[in-house]
Each structure stands twice: as structure tokens, then as C-alpha cells.
């Protein structure tokens, strides 16, 4: 174990540190967080708009009028549908902070650059007409939401890199003699932002001359769609979960490291389901952020809530019982560091086996459940990852009891996998206690 341990410290740690500390990935992660409170608030209205209860829409229509749903969903447009706009600002802000240049300015410039990369028209087919007509003077709402998320991410990084580069290079415009210094300074201050706008403007003009027409189409077809197909597949989910568990097995926060890369992809996947729900279409994606947070990581990474329950109710050794009492409270809210570091699971070959195996099996059961229609797919509702199991499954699927049922099934599966390992571990603890006379 010593050599293995050393290998991990020397090989895995630096890689994890590089990924987690990479300034652009860090800015992406920290910037996108800015959208979360808004999306969670929007989710409350979303759930109320689509409660799958018989007679609910009719009741609402009778009570609040035919337009009830449209009006109830206003806040959804002001949260979910401007996700890219907010994220773009946040990412630029965090990146600028890292470079120690004016973050608020960088954020504002990034928003302007993002709008500049977005078409100012939308296509609309009037009733009875055969062909769509172009409506100008609008910003297509879809591009400001998850559909434009990757464009916002790229623009935020591009614009902030240009901005800080010019500032840090201290490029100065020479003004003729006689111009007061503060006047020349005020012109110089405009230069970095001007250059950002100039670059994105030229980019837009260039792309408008290609068959892509907009930057959103370029990024959507070349980046967002392939990445979503990869990250949203069963294999993609299994690889991601395996990496998360492997990192956690060495005591590193796998979900944070892997999520730092995969987060935007899963967020876009999540929101595609929300858009479909609102449009009355079938939900396209099985693998979403909530797929992992709510259905796989029951009690935290590794689905350890079952293990915590065993410690609490079935342990023979004092040590196991004590840890169970400590772990169950946070475990209900999907926080499991007391188990991973306390049992410990970290660097413990016996417990690492179920710790890695269980979530992988749960990915498969949940994937099968959701693709066959046995369990509902997540409805784009941003349920915080700290939501207790059973409640989480109910809410994440838009208030569907079968979502909770899927979680119960997963809990039972997790219990079955952990049980034999728990027995061996508890026996070890008991033996240790007896030999030391405790």
C-alpha cells in the first residue's frame, strides 16, 4: 500500500492539481456557479408549472385563468433562459480577478461581446403562412440560455484574455502634445474594450459569409453537440463516475475535479430537458447533472448512505457504531466526508471495491430505468445536490413519485453491494477492539 500510496501522491495529485487549478477551467466553474441560485429559484416556478397531477392544469386554469401557465413561467425565462448571459459575465469576472485586472469591466465587456456574437433576429412562421419570416429587433431568447452557454464561455475567455493582455502589456496611445494627460488616459482606458469589440465584430462578419451564418451555429455544431453526445452517453457517464470514484479513493474531491470539466456539458444536457418539458415534447436526455447528483450519489459520492445506515443499525463494533452516528446526519444531505476519511474508505482496498463498484452499477440501473421509461427522466429542475434522497428524486423529475421509486431501488442495490464488505470491515473493527481490550 505504501508504494501505491506514493505513486498516487506523485502521479495523480499533480494531474488533479493541474486540472483543478487551471485558470480557465477554474473561471468556468466559478463563473457558472453564479447562475445556480437563479436557476434554483426558477426551478420552483418550473415545478409548479408542470406538476404531473391529474386535474392540476384544469384546476389552475379555473382558478387563475387560461394564461396561468404562461404567467407562472415568467421567472423561468428570467433565470434559466438567460443562463449564458449570466455565466458569461461570471466567467469573465472570475478570470479577470485571477489576472488582477478590473473584473467588473471585464464582465461588462464580455456581455457586450456575447451579444455581438448573437444574431439580432429570429425566424417566425405566422399562422397560415408557409414560409418563415425574419423578425428583426429581437434577441433570440434560446441563445441567451443553455443553447448559447458554450458561446458565452468561449467569448468570456476570449474577451478577457484580450482585455488583460492589452492592459498588462501596457500598450499606450501616443497623443499629440498639448492633450491634457487625463484626457489621453481616458482614451487609453477605452482601448482594450474597443479591441475586444473589434475582434468579435470581425469574427461575426466573417462567419456571416459562411454557411454557418452565426457563431452560435459554429460552436453548436462543432463543439456543443459532439461534447453533449459524448458526455451524455452511457459510456461517458460510466467513465466520469469511475474517475470521480478513483480520485475519491485517493482522498481527492473527484466530483469537483471531474465536474469542473464536465459541468457545462451536463448543465446544457439538463436544460435541454427543461426546454423540451416547456415545449410539451419528450425529454431528450438521460444523463444530466441531476442524474449524477440525485440518482447516483445517494448520500454522497460512492452512494454511501446505505453504508451509513448499516453502521448505524447493524454494526457490532463500537467504532463502526460511533462513525454511523457521526455520518448519518450529513449523509442524509449527501455529504460523506466522515465516511470517506473516517472509516476510512480512502486508501482502504477493502472498502474501495464497493465504493467504486456501487455508483457504476447505479449508473447502469438508472440509465436502463430512464431509457426504458420505467423511471421518469430529470425535468431540468435544478435540485441542489444536498437534497436528501427520495425527496430529491421526486423533485428532480418534476414532482414524479416514480423518480423517488428509482432512488429507492438504487438504495437497495447499493445496500446489497456494500453489505458483505461492511460485514468484513465491521468484523475487523471488532477484532481490533477486543484485542486492545476496548
Amino acid at each position, binding site marked *: 500500500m505504501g508504494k501505491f500510496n506514493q505513486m498516487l501522491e506523485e502521479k495523480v495529485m499533480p494531474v488533479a492539481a493541474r486540472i483543478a487549478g487551471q485558470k480557465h477551467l477554474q473561471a468556468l466553474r*466559478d463563473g457558472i456557479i453564479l447562475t445556480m441560485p437563479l436557476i434554483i429559484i426558477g426551478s420552483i416556478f418550473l415545478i409548479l408549472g408542470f406538476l404531473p397531477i391529474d386535474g392540476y392544469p384544469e384546476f389552475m386554469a379555473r382558478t387563475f385563468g387560461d394564461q396561468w401557465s404562461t404567467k407562472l413561467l415568467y421567472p423561468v425565462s428570467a433565470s434559466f433562459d438567460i443562463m449564458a448571459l449570466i455565466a458569461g459575465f461570471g466567467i469573465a469576472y472570475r478570470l479577470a480577478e485571477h489576472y488582477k485586472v478590473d473584473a467588473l469591466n471585464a464582465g461588462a465587456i464580455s456581455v457586450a461581446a456575447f451579444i455581438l456574437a448573437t444574431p439580432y433576429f429570429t425566424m417566425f412562421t405566422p399562422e397560415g403562412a408557409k414560409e418563415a419570416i425574419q423578425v428583426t429587433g429581437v434577441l433570440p431568447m434560446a441563445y441567451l440560455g443553455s443553447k448559447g452557454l458554450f458561446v458565452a464561455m468561449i467569448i468570456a475567455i476570449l474577451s478577457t484574455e484580450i482585455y488583460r493582455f492589452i492592459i498588462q502589456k501596457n500598450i499606450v496611445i501616443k497623443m499629440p502634445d498639448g492633450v491634457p494627460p487625463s484626457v489621453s488616459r481616458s482614451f487609453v482606458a477605452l482601448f482594450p474594450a474597443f479591441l475586444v469589440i473589434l475582434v468579435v465584430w470581425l469574427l461575426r462578419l466573417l462567419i456571416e459569409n459562411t454557411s454557418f451564418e452565426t457563431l452560435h451555429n459554429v460552436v453548436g455544431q462543432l463543439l456543443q453537440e459532439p461534447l453533449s453526445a459524448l458526455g451524455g452517453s452511457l459510456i461517458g457517464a460510466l467513465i466520469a463516475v469511475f474517475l470521480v470514484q478513483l480520485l475519491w479513493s485517493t*482522498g481527492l474531491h473527484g466530483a469537483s475535479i471531474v465536474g469542473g470539466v464536465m459541468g457545462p456539458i451536463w448543465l446544457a444536457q439538463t436544460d435541454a430537458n427543461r426546454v423540451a418539458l416547456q415545449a410539451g415534447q419528450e425529454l431528450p436526455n438521460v444523463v444530466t447533472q441531476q442524474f449524477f447528483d440525485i440518482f447516483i450519489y445517494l448520500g454522497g459520492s460512492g452512494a454511501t448512505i446505505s453504508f451509513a445506515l448499516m453502521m448505524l443499525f447493524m454494526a457490532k463494533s463500537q467504532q463502526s457504531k460511533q462513525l454511523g452516528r457521526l455520518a448519518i446526519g450529513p449523509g442524509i444531505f449527501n455529504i460523506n*466526508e*466522515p465516511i*470517506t476519511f*473516517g472509516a476510512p474508505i480512502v486508501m482502504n482496498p477493502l472498502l474501495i471495491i464497493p465504493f467504486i463498484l456501487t455508483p457504476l452499477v447505479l449508473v447502469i440501473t438508472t440509465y436502463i430505468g430512464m431509457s426504458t421509461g420505467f423511471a421518469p427522466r430529470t425535468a431540468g429542475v435544478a435540485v441542489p445536490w444536498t437534497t436528501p434522497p427520495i425527496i430529491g428524486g421526486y423533485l428532480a423529475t418534476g414532482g414524479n413519485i416514480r423518480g423517488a421509486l428509482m432512488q429507492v431501488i438504487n438504495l437497495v442495490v447499493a445496500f446489497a453491494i456494500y453489505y458483505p464488505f461492511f460485514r468484513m470491515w465491521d468484523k475487523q473493527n471488532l477484532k481490533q477492539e477486543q484485542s486492545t481490550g476496548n
Partner: protein
Amino acid sequence: MMNILLCCAAGMSTSLLVTKMEAAAKAEGFEAKIWAVSASEVNQHLDQADVLLVGPQVRYLLPQLKKKGAEKGIPVDAINPVHYGRCNGEEVLKFARSLIGS
């Protein structure tokens, strides 16, 4: 009065430790302000701290955070995983005090 800042990925599991450390500080009659934040919030809180303790699960951030701490003269170190797992407030408080040298 000592200001002890704790940090992990989301600031959730370290907040668990905060309550235990507060209890330990109270029992010893030691005055301390102890609080936990997420890794993305550390920058905004570092100025108010005398010492920064990092959860073992985010110890990959240690080099970066140590550098930031050094700029401000604030000691930064990772919490012992066993103490962390068992939520041993007493030991972690002792560790924080040893880092500051109080």
C-alpha cells in the same frame, strides 16, 4: 481573538467541522471566529483570516492557496485526513493554533 478560515470544495463538509471546533474552543475558553467557505470564495475571505485550513479532499489546491497565503502572511495547510473524517474539533483547533503559534 483568532480568525480561522476553513475551505473545501463547497464549504459544506468543513462547516461540519466548524461546529465541532467552536465547541472545542468554547470548552477551552479560547476566543476564535471559525468559518467555512467554498474554494471559489476563499479569495474574498482570506483577508479576514489569521490562518487557512484546507480540507484534505481539496489538498490539490494547496500549492495555489499557500502562495496566496504567503503574499498576505497567512499560514495555510491541509487538515489531517483522520481528524477530518472523525470531525475531531479539538485536534484541528490545536493544529490551527500551532500554525499561528499562539
